[in-house]
């Protein structure tokens, strides 16, 4: 596959994979996933638990005991849900650290992205791709990081500060226009 002439690229990004960036990406993806479903479940459980406890407090007799028990169980499951989310994130950070340490000597951490009018190219040590903008399924900004989720669930990501040929915001607007997608925003701590 012959690469296109770099001189015609509108934007170029030189991206170096670091453990910090991987954790940042993972945090953003998790938060997005939690926002789309988990948060509703946990909120519903917590609300149901609070209402049941209140009703149990106000009523008398067996109903009170039943509602009080149901309320406690609901709050327990809500707390368990939140704990599992935090635990999963912590385990993911450990896994990322282990994988990063294992693979850091492979010399496969430097990537280049070239954005042309009709397509973009991704160049790594062992692969190079030419991608049509319609192949992007989602566009996400994670606190200063742009993530392109391609069909097939392949994620290309880089920091907006690494963009050359224009600003990161200009590239984000360019990608929105080319892909027809709206940029989703996720805020995470750390950057």
């Amino acid at each position, binding site marked *: 596959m012959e690469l296109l002439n770099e001189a015609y690229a509108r934007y170029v990004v030189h991206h170096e994979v670091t453990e910090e960036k991987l954790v940042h990406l993972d945090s953003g993806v998790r938060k997005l996933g939690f926002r789309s479903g988990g948060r509703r479940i946990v909120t519903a459980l917590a609300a149901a638990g609070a209402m049941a406890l209140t009703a149990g407090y106000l009523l008398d007799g067996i109903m009170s005991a039943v509602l009080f028990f149901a309320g406690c169980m609901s709050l327990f499951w809500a707390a368990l849900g939140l704990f599992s989310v935090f635990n999963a994130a912590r385990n993911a950070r450990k896994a990322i650290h282990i994988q990063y340490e294992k693979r850091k000597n492979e010399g496969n951490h430097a990537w280049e992205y070239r954005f042309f009018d009709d397509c973009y190219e991704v160049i790594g040590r062992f692969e190079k791709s030419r991608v049509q903008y319609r192949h992007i399924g989602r566009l996400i900004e994670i606190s200063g990081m742009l993530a392109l989720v391609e*069909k097939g669930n392949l994620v290309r990501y880089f920091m907006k500060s690494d963009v050359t040929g224009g600003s990161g915001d200009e590239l984000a607007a360019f990608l929105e226009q080319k892909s027809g997608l709206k940029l989703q925003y996720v805020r995470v701590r750390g950057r």
Partner: protein
Amino acid sequence: METLFAVRMEYGVEMYYHQVIASKASPPSEAGRASDEKQARALLESSCLEGMYCNAVFREGSFEVENPEIITEYDYDGITGVQETSRYFVIFWNRSIMISIEKAGFYRGHMEEFAAFLWRKCGKKWQRSLQEHEN
């Protein structure tokens, strides 16, 4: 460089099912088949590639996988593992990317010669063949 092998495949449940079983540490079982198929359907749905065709072309120095929206050229040195199932060769590119080569899809070169070729290119990384318990 001369094309040695060429394969045409469709992104479908079968392809993702074989990726799911290839990615597991233990051999597939009849008991787990329904769960594996469900996982495959979920992966296919989230991929947004269902029904799309792709071509894989193998040359001595590199191989390419192309569909109407993306073309990627891969260096054999980047392969981290190979798993053979009853219908696919599953090439592990990294922890999360698998490239499936359908045995029935060869339109240039023969599947048996391809197996020998792939073994020559990355024999040390060949994990195992999953033949038992599959339909």
